[in-house]
């Protein structure tokens, strides 16, 4: 009886012999954390150093143990896994750090009374000095910049969406993959790589040549943003139009419907959720652009309701100028508080647009009935 049981047990251990036990990573992790904490306790503790040191110890320990038990191939596999997971964690660091920095610095700015409803008109360095030295409230807000951003982005959207959508329609429905269609596809791809500041310079150069030197208005900025936005709209709309099933088009043609009515009434409504979410993502991309607005719209401190006349502020340029040229050079504190508040508002706007794009895609997705 015992003689038959023993070989069974030894066979089982033979199956798992050259392998690390399942709990191995946890044991190594706990050991690494303890050793890391102990080492750092000797030379001065900080959380960042603890994380880095523990991660290195964990990788070294696990790979070393694996090399001893499982051999070099499995050890290399463990090393690669550690590196890949590690690189993902490293990529998360700046994301967490940026969001944390903006939240910590931005919340005091945003809860200042009047921050969202006042402009910077008439707010001078003297007020900021008083705010720092005598504890007076920080004056000034981002209303003008918020208004400018909305106007410029709206105008850019009005220009880009028809052009981008019609181009996508041409590429998918009329292009037939001909020479012109391929050229357009190629140059749209190239256009996505235009540096944003070059788009700004183009709009500036264009209006300098056509209207007159020194023309800086919200409309010039909107043209610059359109140059950046059109390729994004074309690419996303094209993808969406391509996945509309051909049967729908053929059914419409078979009923005697003209091609343009088929496109307007059948193809585009089917793809509209994807197109709308692509447009929203494109808006999210250009709403945070700073450089093109900086060279095309200047920076204003007052409220400007006219996109076609006068300098115009926007959230990104507001952040930029408040950091680089504080309202009061001797006391930059209030300026940086306003800048971080504006940064928080901008990030919230972008996140809302991104989430909105996802929601649009989900809610308005065509009902397939399957």
């Amino acid at each position, binding site marked *: 009886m015992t003689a038959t049981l023993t070989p069974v047990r030894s066979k089982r251990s033979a199956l798992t012999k050259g392998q690390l036990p399942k709990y191995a990573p946890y044991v190594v992790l706990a050991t690494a954390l303890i050793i890391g904490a102990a080492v750092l306790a000797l030379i001065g503790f900080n959380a960042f150093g603890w994380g880095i040191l523990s991660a290195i110890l964990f990788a070294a320990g696990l790979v070393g143990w694996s090399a001893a038990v499982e051999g070099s191939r499995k050890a290399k596999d463990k090393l690669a896994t550690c590196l890949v997971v590690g690189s993902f964690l490293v990529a998360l660091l700046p994301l967490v750090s940026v969001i944390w920095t903006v939240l910590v610095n931005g919340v005091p700015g945003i809860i200042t009374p009047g921050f969202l409803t006042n402009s910077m008109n008439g707010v001078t360095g003297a007020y900021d000095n008083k705010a720092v030295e005598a504890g007076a409230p920080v004056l000034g807000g981002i209303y003008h910049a918020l208004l400018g951003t909305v106007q410029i982005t709206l105008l850019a959207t009005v220009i880009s969406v028809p052009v981008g959508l019609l*181009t996508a329609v041409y590429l998918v429905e009329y292009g037939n993959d001909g020479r012109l269609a391929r050229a357009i596809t190629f140059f749209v791809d190239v256009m996505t790589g235009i540096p944003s500041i070059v788009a700004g310079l183009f709009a500036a150069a264009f209006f300098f040549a056509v209207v007159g030197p020194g023309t800086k208005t919200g409309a010039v900025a909107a043209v610059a943003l359109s*140059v950046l936005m059109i390729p994004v709209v074309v690419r996303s709309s094209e993808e969406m139009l391509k996945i509309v099933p051909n049967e729908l088009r053929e059914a419409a043609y078979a009923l005697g419907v003209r091609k343009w009515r088929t496109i307007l009434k059948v193809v585009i409504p089917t793809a509209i959720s994807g197109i709308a979410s692509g447009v929203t993502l494109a808006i999210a991309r250009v709403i945070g652009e700073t450089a093109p607005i900086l060279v095309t719209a200047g920076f204003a401190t007052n409220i400007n309701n006219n996109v076609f006349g006068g300098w115009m502020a926007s959230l990104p340029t507001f952040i930029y100028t408040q950091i680089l040229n504080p309202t009061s050079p001797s006391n930059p504190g209030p300026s940086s508080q306003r800048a971080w508040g504006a940064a928080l508002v901008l990030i919230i706007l*972008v996140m809302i647009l991104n989430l909105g794009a996802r929601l649009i895609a989900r809610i308005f997705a065509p009902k397939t009935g399957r």
Partner: protein
Amino acid sequence: MTATSLRSPQGAGRTGDKIFSGAALAAGCLILAVLFGVALFLVVQAIPALTAPADKIQGGAGFFPYIWPIVVGTLIAAVIALVIATPIAIGVALFISHFAPRQLAAGLGYVVDLLAAIPSVVYGAWGAAFLAKEISPAYNWLAGNLGWLPILQGPASATGKTILTAGIVLSVMVLPIITSLSREIFLQAPKLHEEAALALGATRWEMIKMAVLPFARPGIISAVMLGLGRALGETMAVALVLSSGALTASLIQSGNQTIAAEIALNFPEASGLKVSTLIAAGLVLFVITLCVNMIARWIITRHKEFSGAN
């Protein structure tokens, strides 16, 4: 009679067809015209700077002595960004495509996309206010221990506002581009090859080395080139983070400048010949990024034609 009654509704439809296809064609051509116009107007506005006498240009030595240090500065910043971002981006892409549990993969991809959603000016502000301060002790250590290397020559900048910091911020900004493109390529790797490798007893890393990476190499190269295009043209990270100056070899001293930051810092107050000089600098940047992007796109299209995987 019957012929006309049949033709008249058709006629209306035909006009609609013509108008609609004409509009679509015009929109497509408009895009080509815009790209052509970008080049044309930049050239037209840049000509005064290119033809002006040398002593009128900023620096007093002509356009080319003015432009080449900032071209080199631009390349230095972009190279730093790519050296840091490429390995991490490939690691992240592999993690999402081949290592992460499948239910998590989509969510993790979204997290990386969030990195791309944060506006560049916020990265610039973060780099200037947070990263530069935190990283300057590391620069002092580097200058003390590796100072014999020309690129790490001391004394390190006390504020941390150096080209290396700017390069690190740039690397964060190009990371999501390289990651998302590489991820797409890794997901396209032929499943049968992967399964065959695993069935022959390969570990996961050996499978990736044998089946995924060789397939994805052209895609990775073009992803890196697109990241390079972004890094070359990125403005705010450098304009806010770097305390600029003359071209220096050391990466941890203040100094150096990039084209995009030079334009952003000077254009708002510029007038006359200075405007032309900056537009000419923009033209140089445009040509550089255009070449980089066209090579990248060419690699992608060539790869698409020859890949039998999909």
